[in-house]
């Protein structure tokens, strides 16, 4: 099939460029291809198979913990104390940003030693055979083959088996059978074939230098994208029986996997990073300004947003619009008391709670988002506006000019936040950019710096009228956050932003020129599904970017 496309994400950049002429270059969409960005691209044809880049991907801490759990039943989360991943484009799993230094290599070593020691403490559960009857060497070989297939997520070569047998023999000679198995485990857990997703594709190209991924490689792509973990037996079986070769077969596995609880964890991992919820661990709040604030509430804020998104995506309509408009949330007794919700849940488990539809609007009225973007002792229209622009619309905003004083104006008893921030629109040096943020942020003013609804600000009435400018299709004034939520729910730009963010997270890289056709397919499928997030995930498994790669070209060392 041949069709010319001009991608909306490129079109958006071009439109934004036009609109930005009066905005002092305060523009740019994350969807713009990196580099020059804002020039309109020539029409592009989707011909043949175009896979995009496939950089080798190292496990993140999240993936390591899950994999060790699924591989060995070890739920100690050993990777939680590893050095944090380098973050790029808002995510911690971007392949080009993840390297290994000596400190991390040591952490892998120590973790492997500890995991292996725990695993061999119950040899009976670990081994597929009894060394007393099968013979120690033979049983070790069987273990290396069967466990190795799961650890490396593919069958081992004879050469690999032989080398691991040598390690076993050395350990057995020193301290006996169990020690031999323990050292084999240590090697496997530090091997690149465990820590990285090593991909070479199939030997024969489908065209030019494009090769299909091997069934096992597809299985790993599926499991790490949808579960943040290794394949299960059903997926291994699908790979080994040749049932991952077509789009439909891959989609069918993806749908099965989305029903597994592990998919919820992986989606929560994306959601937390997408919305910047990790900042909640570090923010400061002034309890004299906010008496209802206490340290213990912060993890609950995060939990609310993740539970809500899980409910929308896995239990509810599943469409992204609800994320911005829902007039319910997931609360427990402690959170209900914090928000002052009458008749809320009586226990500490999270339940669906209907909320006042004039005061609630999905994640936009969650304390997590409102507190993370607020100051210690006041709200921040700037950061709330910035949140909407960057996270929800995928726009990139430049920081203030180098000489800008960007202390929030001091709190005064006689002025509302809106009045105190007036300089941003009056001073032409600030207005160019702040016109994109502050008028969006003012719409949130009925919510204080920890996300609680308020009728007044410094005893003065609140004006929560706002305005959107330089968006694709939702420009114009609005009254309050509920209307803002409705506007976002209808925004093509916001929907495409979600798909773009998922592309980056799912593939561990930023979209490039070669990804236009894959991205276009994803966007179309998302639209066709009524912007259903689960369907978006399925569509991410259907692209050339997912199923193919460029053949590896090695160079002489």
């Amino acid at each position, binding site marked *: 099939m041949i069709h010319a496309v001009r991608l909306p994400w490129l079109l958006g950049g071009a439109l934004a460029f036009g609109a930005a002429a009066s905005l002092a270059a305060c523009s740019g969409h994350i969807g713009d291809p990196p580099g020059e960005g804002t020039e309109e691209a020539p029409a592009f044809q989707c011909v043949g198979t175009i896979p995009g880049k496939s950089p080798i991907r190292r496990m993140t801490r999240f993936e390591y913990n899950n994999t060790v759990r699924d591989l060995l039943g070890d739920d100690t989360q050993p990777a939680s104390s590893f050095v944090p991943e380098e973050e790029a484009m808002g995510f911690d799993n971007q392949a080009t940003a993840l390297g290994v230094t*000596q400190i991390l290599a040591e952490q892998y070593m120590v973790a492997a030693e500890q995991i292996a020691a725990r695993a061999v403490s119950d040899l009976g559960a670990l081994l597929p055979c009894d060394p007393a009857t099968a013979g120690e060497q033979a049983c070790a070989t069987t273990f290396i083959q069967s466990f190795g297939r799961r650890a490396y997520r593919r069958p081992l070569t004879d050469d690999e088996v032989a080398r691991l047998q040598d390690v076993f023999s050395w350990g057995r000679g020193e301290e006996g059978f169990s020690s031999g198995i323990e050292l084999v485990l240590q090697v496997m857990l530090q091997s690149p074939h465990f820590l990285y997703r090593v991909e070479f594709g199939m030997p024969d190209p489908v065209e030019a230098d494009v090769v299909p991924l091997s069934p096992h490689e597809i299985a790993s792509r599926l499991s790490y994208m949808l579960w943040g973990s290794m394949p299960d037996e059903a997926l291994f079986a699908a790979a080994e029986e040749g049932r991952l070769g077509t789009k439909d077969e891959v989609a069918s596995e993806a749908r099965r996997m989305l029903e597994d609880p592990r998919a919820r964890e992986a989606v929560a991992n994306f959601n937390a990073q997408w919305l910047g919820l990790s900042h909640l661990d570090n923010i400061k709040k002034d309890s004299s300004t906010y008496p209802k604030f206490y340290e213990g509430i912060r993890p609950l804020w995060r939990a609310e947003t993740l539970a809500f998104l899980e409910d929308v995506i896995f239990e509810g309509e599943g469409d992204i619009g609800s994320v911005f408009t829902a007039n319910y949330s997931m609360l427990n007794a402690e959170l209900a008391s914090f928000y002052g919700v009458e008749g809320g849940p009586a226990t500490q488990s999270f339940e669906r709670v209907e909320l006042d539809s004039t005061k609630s609007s999905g994640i936009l009225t969650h304390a997590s988002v409102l507190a993370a973007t607020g100051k210690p002792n006041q709200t921040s229209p700037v950061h709330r506006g910035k949140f909407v622009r960057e996270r929800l619309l995928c726009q990139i905003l430049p920081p203030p000019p180098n000489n800008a004083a960007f202390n929030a104006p001091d709190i005064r008893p006689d002025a509302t936040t809106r009045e105190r921030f007036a300089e941003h629109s009056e001073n032409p040096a600030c207005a160019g950019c702040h016109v994109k943020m502050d008028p969006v942020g003012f719409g949130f003013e009925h919510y204080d710096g920890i996300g609680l609804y308020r009728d007044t600000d410094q005893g003065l009435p609140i004006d929560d009228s706002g305005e959107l400018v330089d968006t694709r299709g939702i420009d114009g004034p609005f009254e309050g956050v509920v209307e803002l939520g409705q506007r976002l729910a209808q925004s093509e730009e916001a929907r495409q932003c979600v798909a773009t963010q998922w592309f980056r997270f799912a593939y561990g890289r930023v979209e490039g020129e070669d990804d236009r056709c894959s991205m276009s397919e994803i966007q179309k499928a998302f639209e066709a599904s009524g912007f259903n997030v689960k369907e978006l995930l399925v569509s991410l498994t259907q692209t050339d970017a997912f199923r193919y790669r460029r053949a590896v070209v090695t160079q002489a060392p």
Partner: protein
Amino acid sequence: MKQRTLSRRTLLRGLGGVAVGLPFLGAMADSARATAFPKRFVVFFTGLGTVRPAWIPTGTETDFTFGPILAPLEPFKKKTLVLEGVDYESAYHGPGDPHQQGIGHALTGTELQEGSLFPYACNPGKMVGWAGGISLDQFLADKLGQTTRFPSLEFGVQVQYANVSARISYRGPGQPVPPEDDPYQAYTRIFSDLGTDPEALARLRAQRKTVLDAVTGDYNRLSTRLGASDRMKVDAHLEAVREIEKRLDAPGVIGGSCNPPVLGAPVEPLENDNYPEIAKTQLDLLAMSLICDLTRVASIQWTTVQTGKVFSWLGQDEPHHTLSHSSDSDTKRQQALIDIGHWHAQQLAYLCQKLDSVPEGDGTVLDNTVILWCSDIAQGNTHARRDVPLLVLGGAGGALRTGRHLKYAGAYHNDLLIAISHAMGVPVTTFGNPLYCNGPLSGLLV
């Protein structure tokens, strides 16, 4: 005196005992190392520049008075070099915004990589990668750290973010070295093996050698099958594994002045208000790692640039980054910035005092050390990378002419990096991009 190696048992007995000021591990050192006291290099990085009028000393080159920021360093004035008028000239070239350039160039002296990883200010369509070269600390670690247990140690105090604005150290172009933010993890890594009984330790080392041999083989074989960029990544991992293996037999000794610090109850490493407590522990660990000769190169990075850290223990309620953007005439906020600088100087003084309290030869450990205090920019409301605040402390074993306030007129900071390398006994002719190198910065070396 006859050289001999103290037994592990003798050393371990020292653990519970009183720390005695010993000359540098004399009895324990092997003959090669006993010939001279080691030199050490420490980076002390604080972000967001300074308040110049409160930083610059008054007086003459040799008879000067510290301003309010550096006042806590008074006891070490004779061991200090305050540098004025040195520019991060290289940081006016290549991609990146001022903070990214400032932190990425400070120790590398070369342009950041073009890349698609990090958006940068002022040009939202543009992206930048990592730093484009090896940092001075890692360069020196390669030269000086080959016999110690760790070639270098990187400590962080709530650095927490992981991007180009949060990294000072690089193994090479595009290879950032993350610091360890958690003192408990750092402690375990540095000191835990030293407490193991000798037989168990020998066994552990033999096992590790077997395992790491096999792992190294895996990375080697894989590397040859990969394309260029994947291979670079896997090779960096391979090098890290080789380093571990190489150092399995490196000496680890406890006794005399070398005692693992005693940690208090664990604290949440990223909680804003725990900052001072974490800082003290990290400084204790850093100092003891040097005193025990577990490493000769170390860095401590105080959070990151553009930090949202609130110095609440100084009575402040605005983030440091926000304060740094205030105008020169905003006296209240400028005072807050001076207080932050003063607090950092107190921390540096604490480190110096620890190193200075351990005699070594005719002097102290501090006298055989070079500490470089640097930042990303000159001050937050200009983001200039010229006339940046730079301070060198310690004697480099007599190689530096300390106790002076030196004024330059736009010297390149690459030349400072070169001079430090000379002082450390590695006389390079250039460091970083040779375009910004004229040779060792004049006036520093004896």
